[in-house]
């Protein structure tokens, strides 16, 4: 191709007065942006390769570097925006499907930001979480409809298997293969220390991590990678992945270049072969089929472990959830359209699925209306960004939240959204050994524990303000929420009043 239509997206700005030519930037950039000109003793940069992951910026000892968005301007207009034009150039160049990583970046409504939380004043007292006990513990699983007693009048305690979480948050599924060994170890160790769970994703469980089994959710996806008896028995729960928020309706494709060594062994597929997860489970074409798989997995684990069914939030989500609640599953996990991914076709990521806030509200309402809400616990994910998002999700009806993007951010991710390249400079979404070792799990797990500890404090503060001392009392308590700038239909779906009402 003789003419390059695309001007680089970012500019590498180096303050030459500060640069000491230590070459740390050069050694740390897997994209080979930086180089050293030994004739003149200065650093050079090739911004065409820069993905703005900020690794060089973070490690530069004299803060001589910054990356800025290029202001080189195409003649865009309201219809033909810069990104749209560039996508056309890319496809005209490659002839391929556009790929992207992480969640939907488009300016579609974020309902969390249009929901406000209540606080107690005068007539009901707020609670100070530093002085009073606050309960953030939750149990996930099917709950009994009523108390039943045996012939001696003792309460029967043989309820369905439950997951106990110290706070209503879990790390959502990210497979070993899409993320590195050290990233998985960080998540596993943090989940264990926090008393919560992390999720293997669909890539199997590395043999070194079976010891964290009590805090692990093992996933069974359409590719069935790494699934066998010991795997199912290793986890605290089994999750059937039907869909993913970032790419509802399509499967996965981990390129052969990432199927190396332990990844190949863990997934139980040959080295260098592409790991392709089909779009459907080839044995599931109805709720009855799903029920069969749920029951098969329960049979395989002797009915000791709850089964989670994870689906993407799509148009008919309330009816789908109603079906799942009748399938024998213990927990439904719903993933909204802002959920992250290691790679998805751009058009799908940006245009398919619905916001998790609306999906959650409609599912919770539907299950209540049908009297089957206690059949299942609801877990929601798809860009839960903060403790306030968690509190709003619980008040809308969720039992717990799945977080992944926030977790990888804690590990160092800078959302450069090029996971698909396999050259993650932060050692997260890569299998290259020299990059993987950049993430020391001692540091990674500590940062995850810090993040979740901070969120737990904030959740307690928000609950205290509302005069609520147990997260169980907040669940589905939509009176604690008010909408701001939402229309009647949105308020109706969310089941909340407008601010001021």
């Amino acid at each position: 191709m003789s003419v390059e239509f695309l001007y680089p997206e970012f500019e590498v700005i180096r303050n030459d007065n500060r640069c000491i030519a230590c070459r740390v930037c050069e050694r740390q950039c897997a994209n080979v942006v930086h180089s050293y000109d030994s004739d003149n003793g200065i650093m050079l940069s090739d911004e065409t390769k820069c993905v703005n992951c900020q690794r060089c910026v973070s490690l530069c000892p004299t803060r001589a570097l910054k990356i800025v968005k290029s202001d080189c301007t195409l003649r865009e207009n309201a219809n033909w925006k810069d990104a749209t034009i560039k996508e056309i150039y890319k496809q005209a160049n490659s002839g391929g499907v556009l790929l992207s990583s992480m969640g939907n970046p488009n300016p579609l409504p974020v309902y969390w930001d249009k929901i406000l939380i209540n606080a107690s004043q005068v007539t009901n007292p707020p609670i100070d979480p530093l002085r009073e006990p606050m309960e953030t513990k939750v149990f996930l699983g099917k709950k009994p409809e009523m108390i039943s007693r045996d012939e001696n009048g003792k309460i029967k305690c043989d309820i369905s298997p439950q997951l106990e979480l110290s706070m209503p948050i879990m790390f959502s599924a990210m497979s070993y293969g899409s993320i590195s060994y050290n990233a998985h170890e960080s998540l596993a160790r943090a989940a264990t220390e926090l008393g919560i769970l992390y999720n293997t994703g669909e890539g199997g469980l590395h043999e070194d991590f079976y010891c964290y089994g009590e805090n692990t959710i093992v996933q069974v996806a359409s590719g069935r990678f790494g699934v066998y008896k010991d795997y199912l028995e290793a986890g605290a729960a089994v999750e059937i992945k039907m869909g993913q928020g970032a790419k509802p309706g399509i499967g996965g494709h981990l390129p052969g270049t990432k199927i190396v060594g332990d990844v190949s062994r863990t997934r139980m597929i040959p080295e260098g072969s592409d790991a392709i997860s089909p779009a459907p489970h080839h044995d599931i074409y109805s709720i009855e089929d799903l029920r069969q798989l749920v029951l098969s997995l329960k049979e395989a684990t002797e009915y000791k472990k709850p089964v989670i069914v994870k689906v993407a939030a799509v148009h008919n989500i309330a009816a789908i959830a109603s079906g799942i609640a009748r399938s024998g599953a213990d927990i439904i996990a719903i993933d909204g359209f802002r959920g992250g991914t290691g790679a998805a076709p751009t058009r799908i990521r940006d245009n398919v699925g619905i916001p998790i806030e609306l999906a959650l509200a409609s599912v919770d309402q539907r299950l209540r209306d049908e009297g089957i809400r206690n059949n299942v616990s609801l877990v929601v994910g798809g860009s839960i960004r903060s403790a306030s998002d968690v509190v709003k999700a619980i008040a809308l009806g969720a039992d717990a939240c799945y977080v992944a993007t926030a977790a990888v951010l804690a590990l160092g991710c800078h959302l450069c959204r090029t996971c698909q390249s396999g050259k993650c400079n932060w050692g997260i979404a890569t299998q290259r050994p020299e990059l993987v070792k950049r993430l020391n799990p001692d540091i990674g797990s500590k940062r995850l524990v810090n993040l979740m500890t901070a969120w737990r404090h904030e959740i307690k503060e928000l609950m205290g303000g509302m005069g609520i001392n147990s997260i169980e009392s907040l669940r589905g308590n939509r009176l604690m929420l008010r909408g701001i700038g939402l229309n009647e239909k949105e308020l109706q779906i969310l089941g909340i009043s407008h601010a001021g009402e």
Partner: protein
Amino acid sequence: MKRVYANEKWCLGCRLCEYNCAFANSGEVNMVKALKGKPIFPRIHVDGDESINFAVSCRHCKDPLCVKSCISGALSIKDGVICIDHNKCVGCLTCILVCPYGAVSEGKNGVVQKCELCLENSCGEPACVKGCPNNAIVYEER
């Protein structure tokens, strides 16, 4: 006694430790002023290849060959730390020859320099450890 230990498993070979060391021992308060456009004389060196890296600095041996071999009495042991008196060093470089770790090097003005655990400069704790982005160098009792 607390010593500086390298953990090659986590060393990225970024060489930040070398620059932090040179800066800490420069006596300057600004890294740019201390290091820009000058040859640097770090007391820690990253060694290795594409597959493995590690940072080497003085081991502060219990029975140090360098101290034994010093002809001018410039090297001595103070509370377990092997120190150098730059005023006494005559630059014979025998210590460099005998150190089995290659941890002693020639500094500015032809005299020898070595890691003194940042106890002699304003850093207060080893600058290499403080600045390591991946806990690949630690300062601990073993």
